[in-house]
């Protein structure tokens, strides 16, 4: 069985026939070649595959592409606008919020969800919001600072 899925990804509408068993993360990576969304654990734990679905952070390894039919997805590739980094991307750059960078797209998408409803989170709130995102390198300290950098910058503008 194939099902037609229409998804708006980073503002662009895609219509494609997929098998219902295809995961959203496979659809993004293998069909659309948007490989910025990573697969870490493939067991819903690490958050590397996080994207925004209708604005809400989602582990895209834990949803079938058909479940997202008709909805709107934002991936890390959709964050920069007109060649300018998103404040979160800039924050991770400025505050050394990454080492190997594997977790970073997921971190940024989850942080984007947080900032959309809490524009000036404190450290505790940032750490709680990022509970479902694992980083094996940084020890999280600079990730918190990166999110604070973005929050400050977005508040100022």
């Amino acid at each position, binding site marked *: 069985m194939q099902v037609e899925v229409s998804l708006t990804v980073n503002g662009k509408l895609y219509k494609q026939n997929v098998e219902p068993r295809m995961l959203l993360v496979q659809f993004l990576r293998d069909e659309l070649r948007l490989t910025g969304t990573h697969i870490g654990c493939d067991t819903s734990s690490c958050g590397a595959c996080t994207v925004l679905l209708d604005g809400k952070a989602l582990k895209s390894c834990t949803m079938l592409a*058909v479940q997202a*039919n008709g909805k709107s997805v934002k991936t890390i590739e959709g964050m920069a606008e007109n060649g300018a980094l998103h404040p979160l991307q800039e924050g991770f750059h400025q505050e050394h919020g990454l080492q190997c960078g594997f977790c970073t797209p997921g971190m940024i998408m989850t942080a984007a969800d947080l900032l959309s409803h809490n524009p000036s989170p404190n450290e505790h709130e940032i750490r709680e919001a990022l509970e479902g995102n694992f980083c094996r390198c940084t020890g999280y300290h600079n990730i918190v600072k990166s999110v604070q950098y973005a929050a400050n910058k977005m508040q100022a503008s």
Partner: protein
Amino acid sequence: MVPYKVSYHKANSVAEAIELLNKYEDECKIIAGGHSLVPMMKLRLAEPENLIDISGIEELSGITETENFIIIGACATHADIGRSDIIKKHAPMLEQATNKVGDVQVRNFGTIGGNIAHADPAADWPTLLLAANAKIIIQNAEGTREVDADDFFQGLFSTDMEENELITAIYIPKSAANRNSVYRKFPQPASRFALVGCAAAIEVRNGKVANARVAFAGVSATPFRDSGIEKALEGRNFNAESIEAATSNVANGVSVMQDHFANEKYRRHLAGVFAKKALTDLA
């Protein structure tokens, strides 16, 4: 990981979902948030031939109230429940629980209906619904039936529900006990599921405990109310002394789970510690 081949059907109403459930009988599974089912399908612990997606059904979403009940739609997500002022006002333990289920991503898409239908022994909602004296509304081709939470959870991943039935809503009584309620949880540090969770709803009248409901998650294969604690509290003053006495022998007679994170002795000990914390919050 790739799930086994499956066909997909989107239900746009409860009636349509029931029709599909009867058409495919034991060859189908409902999918709501998919946050238990998809991981199971990826591990091929579940291999349904047909999926019936109920997540878009308007009638199943939202949180409303009547004079005596809060009504939570089966497809309300953990995050929806956490944001509800009705819940906050009438059943604080439910609001507290929403911040403790999994992580932000799970809370955005997992639903209360899927959570209780799945009946994981370490899940939070079954225990909360026991403590809240909730009613679960179930629909099938014949009509609607109502089951008390006390009778709904029957064992490991097992409930009082047939293959062709659908949970439509959960009724939470607006009671004095639910207004004075709390949820305390010790999460397994990696999975966030409850190593131990304790939900307590206590009504105090004229200085004495008039009604106590205390339930545990993660402790045994089936979530349960601890009648030992409840009986020890009822009729007593609600203070440090009565709490100490009531929590000195928790899960008495209950078969306690063990795994490589917590053996039976440690889990039982944690249950006592978390019951005491929960009750102390309320006293």
